[in-house]
C-alpha cells in the first residue's frame, strides 16, 4: 500500500496511472450526472412553496459544497507539498484553484438566479452569501499569484503558502461574517433550512453531489497531467512520449 503511494508520487508513474483511470472516472461521472439530472428534473415532485424553481438546487447545492471542499483539498495538498516536498501535491494544489473558483462562481450564479423568484432579489448581504463571495476572492487571489510568478516551482510553492493562510482564515471569515450578519440584520428571508427533505429530492441531490466530486477528480487529474508534461518537458520520458506515434 505504502509502496503504491510512493510510486504514485512520482510524476511519471502518476501520469500513466491517471491516464489509465481517467476514462473510467469520466464515464462514471457522466452516468451519475445523467441519473441525477433525470431524477432531479423529472422524478422529484414539485415543491409546494417554490414550484419548479427549486430544481436549480440540484446544481446549486453540490456546487456550493464543492466550493468549500476544493479549497480544503487545495490547502491540504499544498501543505503536503510544502512539508514533504512532494511535487505532485503542489501540482494538485495549483490545478485545483481554477476548478474551485469555477464551482464557487457557479454556486453564486445559481444562488442569485434562485434568489430572484424566492426572495425577490438577486442578492442580499446574508452571511452565507457574503462568505461565499469572499471565498471567490480567496480563490482569485491564489490564481493571480500563481500566474504572476514566472518560475513554475516557485509559483506552486508560493501558492501553497497562500492557500494555507487562506484555509486558516476561512473559519474566521465564516464566523465573523455570520456574526456580523446576525448583529446587523433582523429576520432575513434567507433561511436555508429545508426541514425534512423528501426522499425523492434527497436522492438526486446526493447523486449530483457525487457526480460533482467525480467531475472535480476528472478535471483535476487532467489538469495535473498537463502540468506534469509542461514541467517535465525536458526529461527523457516526456520526449519519448511525444516522439512515440
Amino acid at each position, binding site marked *: 500500500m505504502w509502496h503504491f503511494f510512493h510510486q504514485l508520487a512520482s510524476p511519471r508513474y502518476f501520469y500513466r496511472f491517471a491516464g489509465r483511470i481517467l476514462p473510467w472516472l469520466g464515464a462514471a461521472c457522466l452516468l451519475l450526472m445523467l441519473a441525477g439530472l433525470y431524477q432531479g428534473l423529472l422524478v422529484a415532485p414539485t415543491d409546494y412553496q417554490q414550484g419548479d424553481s427549486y430544481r436549480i438546487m440540484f446544481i446549486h447545492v453540490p456546487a456550493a459544497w464543492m466550493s468549500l471542499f476544493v479549497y480544503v483539498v487545495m490547502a491540504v495538498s499544498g501543505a503536503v507539498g*510544502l512539508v514533504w516536498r512532494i511535487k505532485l501535491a503542489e501540482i494538485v494544489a495549483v490545478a485545483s484553484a481554477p476548478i474551485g473558483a469555477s464551482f464557487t462562481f457557479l454556486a453564486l450564479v445559481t444562488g442569485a438566479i434562485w434568489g430572484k423568484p424566492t426572495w425577490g432579489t438577486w442578492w442580499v448581504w446574508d452571511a452565507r452569501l457574503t462568505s461565499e463571495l*469572499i471565498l471567490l*476572492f*480567496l480563490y*482569485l*487571489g491564489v490564481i*493571480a*499569484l500563481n500566474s*504572476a*510568478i514566472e518560475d513554475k516551482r*516557485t509559483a506552486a*510553492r*508560493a501558492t501553497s*503558502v*497562500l492557500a*494555507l*493562510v*487562506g484555509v*486558516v*482564515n476561512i473559519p*474566521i*471569515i465564516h464566523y*465573523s*461574517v455570520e*456574526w*456580523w450578519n446576525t*448583529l*446587523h440584520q433582523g429576520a432575513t428571508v434567507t433561511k436555508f433550512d429545508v426541514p425534512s427533505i423528501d426522499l425523492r429530492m434527497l436522492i438526486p441531490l446526493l447523486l449530483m453531489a457525487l457526480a460533482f466530486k467525480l467531475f472535480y477528480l476528472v478535471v483535476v487529474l487532467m489538469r495535473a497531467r498537463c502540468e506534469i508534461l509542461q514541467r517535465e518537458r525536458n526529461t527523457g520520458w516526456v520526449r519519448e512520449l511525444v516522439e512515440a506515434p
Partner: protein
Amino acid sequence: MSSAQLNRAFVVLLKRDLTLAFRRRSEMVNPLLFFVLVTTLFPLGVGADPALLRSIGPGIIWVAALLAALLSLESVLRSDFEDGSLEQLMLSAHPLSVLMLAKVLAHWLVTGLPLLLVAPLLGLLLGLSGDAIVTLVQTLALGTPVLSLVGTIGVALTVGLRKGGMILSLLVLPLYIPVLIFAADAVTSTGAGLPVTAQLSLLSALLVLALSLTPAATAAALKISLA
C-alpha cells in the same frame, strides 16, 4: 545562538528600521495623508447628511485604514529586497520569523500608530460621539497590528514580482475582512450605546493569533520568494 543574542538582533533590526524611517521622514506622513484623503472622499461621494455620515462613519474610517495599511505595506520588504539586505537577513544566524516580527513592529510603529493619533479627528469630522471615538481608537490599536502582520505575508509572497502592488491587494484584502467586521461593528455599537467587550476580545484574540502564526508564515513565504 543564545536567546540574549536573539534579543539583541531583534532590537538592532527594530532600531535600524526606525532610524531608516526617521531619515526619510517626509515619506512617513504619506500613509497618514492617504488615510485622511480617502476618508474625506466619502462625504463628497455620499452627500453631507450628518445622520448618514455618523452611521457609516466607522465603516468608512476602517476601510480607509485598511487601504492605507495595504498601500504602505510594500515598503516593509521592497527596499530591503532591492538592495540585498533581505538576503542578509535570511542568512543571519537567527530565526527569520523573529527578525520579521521586528520589521513588522517597526512598520506598525511608523505607519499604524500615527493612524491612531489622527483617527479621533476624522471621527469628529464624521460626527461620531465621544464614546464611539474612544472605541475607534481601541479597535485601531488592536486591529492595525493584525493588518501589518497579515499583510506582511502577502508582501513576502510578492516581493520578487515586478508589479506587486495590485496583486498584493487581491491577496491581502480578503484576509482583512474579519478585522474590518469586528472593528467597525464595535464602533457602531458604541454609538448605539451597546456593550462592545465581545468585539474587543475577538479583536484581541485575532491579534494573539496573528502574532503567533504569521511570522512563521512570512518567513516561509520569504524563503520561497527569494529562492
